[in-house]
C-alpha cells in the first residue's frame, strides 16, 4: 500500500505502523459519571465498517507523524490523509 503523506508525498505503508480506528483520538472525559462505560466503548467497541474507515497510522520510519487515513476496507482505496494532530485539534482536543 502507498500512503500519500500530506507533507512528504507517497510513501510505502511498510514505513508506517497501524493502530486502528481514528475514534481513539476521542478519549473520553475521565471525570464523566459514565466514565467506566465511555472508556469501555472507546477502547473496545468498533464500527468495523465495510467501506470507508478513518484510521490511525504512525510514520515510524518517517517523520513520526500520526496520520488519519480514510481508506476503504473493501477496496483499500485511500481517499484522504490528514495529520492526526490537525484532526485532533479540529475535534476540540487541546491540552
Amino acid at each position, binding site marked *: 500500500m502507498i500512503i500519500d503523506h500530506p507533507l512528504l508525498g507517497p510513501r510505502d505503508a511498510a514505513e508506517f505502523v*497501524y493502530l486502528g480506528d481514528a475514534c481513539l483520538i476521542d478519549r473520553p472525559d475521565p471525570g464523566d459519571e459514565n466514565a467506566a462505560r465511555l472508556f469501555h466503548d472507546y477502547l473496545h467497541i468498533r*464500527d468495523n465498517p465495510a467501506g470507508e474507515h478513518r484510521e490511525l497510522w504512525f510514520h515510524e520510519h518517517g517523520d513520526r507523524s500520526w496520520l488519519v487515513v480514510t*481508506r476503504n476496507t473493501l477496496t483499500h482505496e485511500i481517499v484522504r490523509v490528514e495529520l492526526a494532530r490537525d484532526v485532533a485539534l479540529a475535534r476540540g482536543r487541546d491540552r
Partner: protein
Amino acid sequence: MRYSVLQILKEGLTGNRGWKPVWREPDPKQHYDIVIVGGGGHGMATAYYLASVHGLTDIAVLEKGWIGCGNVGRNTTIIRSNYLLPGNEPFYELSMKLWEGLEQDINYNAMVSQRGLINLFHTDPQRDAAVRRGNAMLLAGAGAVLLDREALRRKCPFLDFDNERFPIKGGLWQPRGGTVRHDAVVWGYARGADRRGVDVIQNCEVTGFDIRNGVCRGVETTRGAIGANKVAVCVAGSSGQVMGLAGLRLPIESHVLQACVTEGLKPAIPGVITFGAGHFYVSQSDKGGLVFGGDIDGYNTYAQRGNLPTVEDVCEGGMALMPMIGRARVLRMWGGVVDMSMDGSPFIDRTPVEGLFFSGGWCYGGFKAVPAGGYCLAHLMATGAPHRVAEAMRLDRFMTGAVIDEKGMGAQANLH
C-alpha cells in the same frame, strides 16, 4: 449412503455413477426452530451438534455463498490445544478430543493428522513462558513435552542450528497437535447434519433480522424471510457487518490473514513447527505442499487479499528457521478475513437481543476450535446455559475486566 471401503469398491466397479449428493439442496422453509447464519465450520458444527447431541433437527444453516467458502476453506489447517489461560485451555482441549473422534462420528475422513506441533523458543523468558504454558496444558490433560535443543535437533535436523540469528533453545511439543483437511471438515459436518434433517441452504444471504420488542424472531434473506425461534450468527470476518444488521456493535475488527502453499514436495517436514523469533509456522499437506503463514497484515480490511510486506516477513521467518525450504516455490497465497477481538479470544454468548446468539471473535485461530465452538454454542442454545469450558467467552468481559488475553497485548485487535 454410508461411506466405506466396500462402497468405494462397488462404485469403482460401476463407473462411480452411484454416488449421491453429500448434502441436499432444499429450498428454505418459512420457519425453523433454529436458524444458523453462516455455513462455515462453526455454523455447520453447531447444526451438527444441535442435531446429534440435543436431538434438535428443525434447523436451517444459511450460507451467503457456497459452504466452506470462508475461513474454514482458507486457513493453514492447524489443530492444537496449547493455550495458557484457564478461560481458554479447557475449551481447546475439548475441541481436540472432538477432533480425535470426529471422523468416525461423522463418517467422513477429514484426515485428522496428529503428527505433533512444536512451538520453538529462543530466549530464557520465552522458555519460562513455555514451561508455564506446558504445565497449564498438562493440568488440562492436553499433554505437552519440553524439548531441549538436542532433542529438537533429532526431530528436526533441518532447522538452522548453526547460523541462526536467534539461537533455538528448545520447543514446547504437543504430540496431539497436527493438521486436518480443512475443506473436508465442513463437508463432513454438512453431510452429518443433512442426514439428520438439517437444511443446508447455499446462496442465501441474510440481509436483516426480524427483531420485535428486543426479541429476535427470524431473519430476512435474499431468498425471503425465514422465521426462527432462535438465531445464531457464526460469520467470522463478517461478524461486525451481520451483527450490525441487528443493531449490535462488537469488540471486533476485521483483518486479513494471509497464508501460502508451495508446490508439492516429497515429505520434508514432520508435523507443525512454529518459529518463536519471527512470524512463521509451517506444516506439510498430504499432497506435499508446505502450508505456511505468519502474522496478519495488521490493517482493517474485508478484502480477502493482503500485501507483499507481510508475505516477505513470513518467508524471512521461514528462511531464518529452515533455510532448506528456500528453493521450494510458493504456488498460491490467499487471504482470509478474520474477526480479531480486543483480547484475542472468542465469544460464545447470548446477545442483548433475546433469541439471538453469537459465536465470533475467533481471530486467526477459529479452525482448530470448530468442533468445540459448535459443540458449546449448541449446548448454550439447547440448554440455555453456557458450556462449562466456554463460560469465560462472554461479550461483556471488557466491561467487567475478565479479559482472556493470551499474549498480553491489551485492547488492540491487530496485536493478538
